[in-house]
């Protein structure tokens, strides 16, 4: 938390030579400013005051707006609809808002799978009970189209949350996938949900295993770079007799689709073509299902019933060599209480690549889930609600908020990953933050489209049916394809197509090229 007048004094004293650099850094630390930010400010050619004003600007503009809006508000109260389990990132600031602005923050927690439904319910009930809502990026299209939430673009232009800043903005392309709908800003991201690959470093560094692996496969035992290497490693490390499995990849309902989508993206395929025909019902999609089925024999036996937390717990108990998880999974496996067998033994890497028909490797990641703040149209204090959202997601406050335990927020801004605060480094490690950055720049979006949850569910149902042996790969993909066509027809092809074009406009260049998106014509 940043006490502006005191920081201002410290900046002036430093610029006037009253404070040494070391004393300045110490003073800023006492005032709650992360070391990296303070260090960057102290070394900036602009001068400390200007540099501080730059990175701190979004927070300060939000705070000033909050002061003005709170002064005007008849009821100094904000109600937030948040998913259960996410409160820990927000509670540290409740007293500041109460004491300095007189604004009471009330949190209504709902199970994460219910937040979208609760929002749609509010769209018809119009009670005005919520001011700020914390859905995933997939909720924005349906919520905006149903008149539930504000288009934030005008506020964003006016108060500049620095979400597209090239030094401390939200990392591209997540900045666009998880905050925009049809090119307009509809939410402010507060959670960098992407999946990365974790491996057990102690097994990779085991000299006996390294030798055996190299003898068998002819290359060094290391983190997998491709899906083929991932498979070979899982096969090599799989030791079910000792309750140690090749990987803990999800095969359970609700999670299976992301495993499928990730592998499909690695093959240079998105979910639709430019005419909204599903693209997974293709040789690439079939190959992905075949690869997943082949992988099943090296998975943890609970893979078919894993929830996010039971997966993390099993990995933390040391029951697998690899795991594909959100950043919170890394936190779990490196904390002694949740990762008793894995603390200090984890290495991470970007998602494996696949080989394209032209022989090149394509690295792609999945930005899946990802909470953000949206502002209810029925809020009595929408400007105050927006100010809260901008303040919480500003480069400085978010860097402070993410490391708090008891919340889902994971790094999403450039400064979180490339200029992390000591607390961020302590929570995630410098190497993992770099891995997160390298992975997020290649992420493809989830179904952040009108009817997004329906598409997701239709795909998940069929992928899961295939994984359990209920359906053959071709039958599963045919069924998913038919379901997609039905959803598209019902929602309106033109409407979905317009937002699909807007969504996929922003992709990493290699992915844009590999998927053919660069050649699409509206």
């Amino acid at each position, binding site marked *: 938390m940043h006490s502006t007048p005191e920081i201002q004094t410290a900046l002036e004293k430093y610029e006037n030579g009253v404070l040494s650099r070391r004393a300045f850094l110490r003073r800023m630390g006492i005032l709650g400013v992360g070391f990296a930010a303070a260090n960057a400010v102290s070394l900036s050619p602009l001068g400390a005051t200007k540099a501080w004003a730059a990175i701190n600007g979004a927070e300060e503009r939000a705070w000033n707006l909050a002061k003005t809006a709170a002064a005007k508000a008849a009821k100094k109260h904000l109600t937030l609809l948040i998913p259960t389990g996410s409160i820990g990132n927000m509670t540290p600031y409740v007293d500041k808002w109460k004491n300095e602005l007189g604004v009471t923050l009330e949190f209504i927690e709902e199970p994460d799978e*219910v937040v979208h439904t609760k929002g749609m319910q509010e769209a018809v009930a119009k009670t005005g009970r919520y001011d700020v809502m914390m859905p995933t990026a997939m909720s924005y299209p349906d919520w905006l189209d149903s008149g539930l939430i504000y288009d934030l673009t005008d506020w964003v232009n006016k108060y500049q949350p620095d979400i597209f800043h090239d030094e401390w903005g939200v990392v591209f392309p997540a900045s666009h996938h998880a905050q925009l709908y049809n090119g307009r800003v509809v939410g402010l991201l507060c959670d960098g949900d992407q999946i990365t690959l974790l491996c057990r470093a102690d097994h990779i560094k085991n000299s006996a295993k390294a030798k055996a692996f190299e003898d068998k496969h002819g290359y060094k035992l290391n983190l997998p770079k491709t899906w083929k290497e991932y498979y070979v490693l899982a096969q090599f490390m799989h030791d079910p007799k000792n309750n140690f499995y090749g990987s803990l990849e999800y095969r359970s309902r609700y999670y299976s689709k992301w495993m499928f989508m990730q592998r499909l993206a690695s093959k240079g395929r998105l979910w639709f073509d430019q005419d909204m025909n599903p693209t997974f019902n293709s040789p690439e999609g079939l190959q992905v299902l075949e690869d997943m089925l082949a992988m099943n024999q090296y998975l943890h036996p609970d893979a078919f019933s894993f929830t996010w937390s039971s997966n993390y717990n099993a990995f933390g108990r040391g029951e697998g060599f690899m795991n594909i998880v959100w950043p919170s999974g890394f936190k779990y496996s490196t904390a002694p209480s*949740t990762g008793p067998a894995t603390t200090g033994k984890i290495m991470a890497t970007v998602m494996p690549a696949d080989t394209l028909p032209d022989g090149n490797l394509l690295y792609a990641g999945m930005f899946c889930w990802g909470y953000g703040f949206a502002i209810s149209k029925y809020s009595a204090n929408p400007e105050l609600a927006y100010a809260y959202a901008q303040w919480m997601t500003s480069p400085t406050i978010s860097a402070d908020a993410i490391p708090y335990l*008891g919340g889902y927020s994971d790094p999403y801004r450039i400064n979180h990953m490339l200029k992390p605060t000591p607390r961020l480094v302590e929570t995630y490690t410098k190497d993992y933050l770099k891995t997160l950055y390298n992975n997020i720049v290649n992420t493809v979006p989830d179904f952040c489209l009108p009817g997004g949850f329906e598409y997701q569910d239709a795909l998940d149902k069929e992928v899961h049916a295939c994984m359990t042996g209920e359906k053959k790969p071709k039958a599963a993909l045919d069924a998913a394809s038919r379901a997609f066509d039905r959803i598209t027809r019902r929602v309106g092809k033109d409407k979905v197509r317009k937002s699909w074009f807007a969504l996929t406009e922003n992709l990493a260049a290699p992915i844009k090229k590999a998927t053919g998106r660069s050649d699409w014509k509206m």
Partner: protein
Amino acid sequence: MAPRKLGIPLAVVMGAGLAFTLFPIFWLVMTAIKPPIDWNASPAVWLPSCPTFINFLTLFDPDAIREYGVGGVSQSATAAVFGSILASVASTCISVCIGLFSAIGISRYSKGSRSTPLVILSGRMFPPAAIAVPFVIIFSTVSLIDSYVGLIAVYVAVTLPFSTWMLKSFVDDLPREIEEAAMLDGMTRVKAHLTVTIPLIKGGLFSTTMLVFILNWSEFMFALVLSYSNISTIPVQLSKYVTATAGTLYGVQAALAVLAMLPLVAGGFLIQGHLARGMTFGAIKQ
């Protein structure tokens, strides 16, 4: 007839059946007294080595479980327990009272309209999810959303077909002649029903009350969609025990589930004589 002696094969089969039936309850109780590390240990911990009441304490003091390194529990279950008791007791009383008089009315005085019982039953002929959103719209218009009055009204509406139909079957099985004899002795119709009909179907009344109470006590969907922050019930609260630091709090959920079972088990024991009678009432047709 003298009771038959239980043979060994039958005893084994019945024992296995009993073990199978009681296993979920055993597992629930064990999970409720396990420390967090044992909740989903692999291999499973059947009997906790260090039994603890920390999960029960956490229900009413969310910070209690921090001593086990689990943070992020932010809600006490007190309001949910209170809400469940209020909503279930009130709606059960209202539903059974209305159902009882409807049952007597239909069984004894219905003339012509054979479809009345079916019309009442039609309220149960579509899935509750189909009426959840209309309820939200209507209740938000009349300011009944997020209120116990609204929740109780829905519970009564949903369980009334059960109470009416169940009680009607009990009243049907009671010979009319008994009430007529009471009326011949000078009782009014109402008095005859209050002093003769109702005491004679006491077993059925208890079993109906129990069933309706269970339906209300365990109801999830309406409580979820009709609540914001003013009201809560145990089934809704159960779904909220998820934290970012420990995932699903199985032990705390189990503790709340054990607490939720207690009134039903206690009530069942208290009225078990009536329940047995209620269940078999009318089994032999006259």
